């Protein structure tokens, strides 16, 4: 899968006023942070804690907005909505899907961050 399909680099750069160095830093930070948030979402789901699931999804949503990654954003928004509604039976499937999409995004962002010129 190409980088452009999972996140829109041009849009993401536009959001940071073409500050590529900042976008590299944001990508590195996301690659570290997102697995922790996803783990928190999975743990909440396993514990049947709908509110905690909604909180974890909400937190990821804020970070995802920085990368113009519409597919992962749609999935995570759905997960947040299910958590808020307390309908955890559907959330398991959505969570697995989001997890998969997220891994793709993390891989893409890791590849992007690796292009950062050495200082």
């Amino acid at each position: 899968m190409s980088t452009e399909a999972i996140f829109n680099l041009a849009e993401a750069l536009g959001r940071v006023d073409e500050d590529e160095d900042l976008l590299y830093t944001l990508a590195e930070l996301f690659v570290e942070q997102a697995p922790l948030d996803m783990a928190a979402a999975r743990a909440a789901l396993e514990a049947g804690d709908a509110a905690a699931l909604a909180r974890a999804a909400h937190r990821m949503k804020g970070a995802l907005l920085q990368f113009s990654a519409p597919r992962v954003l749609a999935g995570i928004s759905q997960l947040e909505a299910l958590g808020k509604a307390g309908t955890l039976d559907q959330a398991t499937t959505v969570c697995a899907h989001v997890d998969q999409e997220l891994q793709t995004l993390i891989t893409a962002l890791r590849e992007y961050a690796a292009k950062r010129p050495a200082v």
Partner: protein
Amino acid sequence: MNPEISSTQPATHVSHAPATILLVDDEPVSRLSMAARLKRMGLRVLEAGNGKEGLEILRRERPDLTILDWVMPEMDGPTVCELVRRDPAILSSQLILMTSHDQPEQIAEGLARGADDFLSKAASKQEILARVQSGLRTASLLQSIESARDQLRAKQEQMEDELLSAAGYMHSLLPRAGEVAPGIHMSWTYRPSLALGGDLFNCSRWDDRSIMFYILDASGHGVSPALRAASFATFLRAENLRHFVTANDPAAILAEANRHYPLTEEGYYFTVWIGSFDRTTHQLRYATAGHGGAVIQRRNGTIEWLTHAHLPLGFEPESTYELKTTQIEDGDRVILMSDGVYEAPAATGEVWGTERLAATLGALRSTALSDVLPAMMAEAERWHGASIFPDDAALLGLEFRI
């Protein structure tokens, strides 16, 4: 640097120092992105990772604007807003709530809980810039208002201190109650309508044979009448009057005073009543310029008003004043008063009046003079329904044991 940002940024803040923004967000990616954007706008950015920490920094650093994430551990954004609005030291802080919520009811809740504005996490850079500038503009205006308010308070305190100091001086011009001359006891009570009153009175020995006493009322309220009253009281000192008159003659003193104190350009004037008591003949001689508040209460309780119609001072330069006399007997009391006492209005507007005053005085005939005057003031207060009268209220009493 983006020219749009650099050209508009200076207008957002009055001082030359960059405005300070506190950014409170637990999510590091979006916080870093927003912080970078704000720094590019030329702003100083402080960061906090949760509401509790943000509130501490807000109290300590007093940023010009605070941007708060809605959902945060420890303390969420709306709770921070509520706590800020309850704290008098920081309640005027400008607060923008930021979230990926964008439903109208959530925006309404954020505003109701104390936020000044709302910013979506998906907002464009143009919208972020516009909202931050709007918040800083409001913060700058509020700071100007608070600064002006603080200056006004400081000036007000300074003026009140000066007024108290002036009131202290006015108080020093009033006589000491007690025995003025053998067998003549004096008492008084005074309630200015403001810190500084325009009524003054005194009672002093003219020479070994006679005493002089008076009450004056400068028209108007506040500093100017008080200053004019102080000037007139200085004029009425015996050692000064001897430069102008040869005898303790109230009518001659009033004629001289009339020349010295013409009507002011603003139309202010004095009313005054002056009495002279001869300790050998026991004769009271008196004259008045428009002052109606003087009464003698005989030992048997009979009340006679020691007044007659005459213009106040200053209306006609060559005015002369009628000298009246009455004989004082042992046990008689003379009470001088300003019109603020008997013209004290009830809630209906009806004044207390000289008849009610005389009846009160009659009821107090067997009471000690030093208790009579406060009791009369209390009765006027009861009629008025409040402790502060609309006009200065003064009572001076003399009791003759001769």
